[in-house]
């Protein structure tokens, strides 16, 4: 087959033949990645997205505010240690705090799950697509072409990474504050059994990952909301309202029939980790609920985004 015949058979080659015939500028190997590049293309895009989210001043400020929470509550609880709280008052595990500082991580995670963590995820998830649309950068990415499904997958992966980073930050700082301000030692579980400090820290890490997964499933709702608008503030506010409304409904006994369907219902169902033997039932229900929310709203986001006209 002659070169010309091949060009005619291949429309892209045919239309670029003028460019190919001019060797002055054209260096095909310099522009185009080989099949086995040193960095996979998806990882390049993913790390670019990570740098974008974690390099953005607003998001860093958000992580900065989250860092203040363990410090603030560590000091508050240390100063008020002598004032006993009756059973049933205050957040879970607050009564264990005097005996062991590692429980500060659980107390602070429970408190930040009320507002600050959902807010942080709402900002990242609500901004994910709507922010690009609002800036106009979405049309640039899509004409690259980044690929709509691929863009959405990368956005959601980074929402997950941000959730995990926010939760790890809170747990790590709480553990440090707990070690500095309170007694620490072997951890007494709710069932009375005692495990080593190291084993206790591992369980707190498991709680952290579980909470991050819960927030990531909320992030799927945010991702879907973000594909519906060009105004990130709308998507952010919408998701925050959903999260808070869900938490409020979860507190109303008259709504108990729908409690287990609420997106935030299982966020605190990790107390089974602090029993011996570990009671996995709450967390298992939670993981199923998170997965269902992620799949349903991930599909909504995908269906909307892959068919939408980009007019921004």
């Amino acid at each position: 087959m002659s070169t010309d015949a091949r060009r005619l058979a291949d429309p892209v080659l045919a239309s670029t033949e003028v460019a190919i015939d001019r060797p002055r500028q054209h260096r095909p190997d310099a522009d185009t990645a080989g099949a086995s590049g040193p960095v996979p293309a998806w990882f390049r895009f993913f790390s670019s997205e990570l740098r974008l989210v974690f390099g953005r001043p607003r998001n860093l400020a958000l992580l900065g505010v989250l860092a203040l929470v363990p410090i603030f509550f560590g000091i508050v609880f240390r100063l008020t240690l002598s004032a006993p709280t009756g059973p049933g008052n205050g957040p879970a595990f607050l009564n264990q705090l005097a005996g062991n500082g590692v429980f500060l991580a659980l107390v602070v995670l429970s408190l930040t799950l009320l507002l600050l963590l959902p807010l942080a995820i709402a900002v990242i998830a609500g901004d994910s697509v709507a922010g690009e649309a609002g800036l106009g950068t979405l049309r640039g990415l899509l004409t690259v072409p980044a690929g709509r499904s691929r863009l959405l997958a990368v956005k959601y992966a980074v929402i997950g990474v941000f959730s995990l980073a926010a939760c790890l930050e809170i747990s790590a700082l709480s553990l440090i504050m707990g070690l500095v301000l309170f007694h620490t030692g072997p951890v007494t579980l709710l069932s009375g059994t005692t495990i080593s400090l190291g084993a206790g820290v591992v369980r707190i890490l498991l709680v952290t990952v579980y909470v991050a997964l819960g927030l990531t499933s909320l992030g799927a709702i945010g991702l879907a909301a973000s594909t519906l608008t060009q105004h990130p503030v709308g998507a952010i506010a919408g998701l925050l309202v959903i999260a808070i409304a869900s938490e409020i409904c979860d507190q109303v006994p008259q709504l108990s029939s729908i409690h287990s369907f609420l997106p935030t219902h299982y966020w605190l169902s990790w107390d089974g980790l602090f029993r011996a033997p570990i009671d996995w039932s709450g967390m298992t229900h939670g993981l199923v609920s998170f997965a269902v929310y992620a799949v349903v709203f991930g599909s909504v986001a995908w269906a909307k985004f892959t068919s939408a006209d980009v007019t921004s």
Partner: protein
Amino acid sequence: MTSAAGLALSSSGLTKRYRGGQLAVDGIDLAVPAGSVYGFLGPNGSGKTTTIRMLLGLMQPTAGSHDVLGLPMPAGQARALPLVGSLVEGPAFYPHLSGRANLARLDAADRTANPSTLQDRIDRALDRVGLLAAADKRYRAYSLGMKQRLGIATSLLRQRALVVLDEPTNGLDPQGTREVRALIREIAADGTTVFVSSHLLAEVEQTCTHVGVMRTGKLVYQGSLAELRGQARLLVKTPKPDQAATVLRDLGLTGVTQDSQEVRADLGTMLPEVICERLVLAGVPVAGLETPRRSLEDEFVELTGEGFDVD
């Protein structure tokens, strides 16, 4: 029908009707020859940007089909679009990132780009638009002209077969406009097809080889610039325009219009001296006879019924 291999862009019956029912693009058949500089003209709101958005896969056509670089869309998007550089409806970048970081971000989204030559390619693209000195400045601090040039730089990040520029001189001063024109010529000299939309006449007249003219969603003219300007007209000055118009029509001339002092018609292939002789023989007093070469602006006004925003 032209073979797809000769066309960088082609469409057939491409139509976009918005949800409100408004017909933004009404069945246009584009044919952009490979290697041409195609000026896509039309007043603001005539459907140029909507057409470009459909061509690049940002919008789904309501009806019709189109090919980019000979590949049918949208199936061929992943193969064709990496060879297409584009600037759609003004530059849009992350304000807190530098010009360099913004280009790197777009390149990272391109699964066919080679990361090991990235810095080289960014330097080259920024150099060509004269932004190398401001490469590490935040986009937020760029002037309007610099933003526009960064937008053009994205289309130069790789060797392209086609570059689509939507209103590339918007917001530029006369000096910047001249630079963009020079850049378009330079891109075209490399063999790249350039598709440039504009409502500015001078931009097109000085750089394009082909034009397409849009009016309220329809492509009212398409062809080479030489063809558009080559349609000579005839102007007869006479105190008896009715009589003159009858003679011209009898001669088979088209596009005859008249007012109280003069008659105009398309000259076609007829020689002016023959027409003059016929008019005199018919007893029409001829006060003057001209074959004015029409400016592109005249053509445009006639085709669109609207004037240009001439800067």
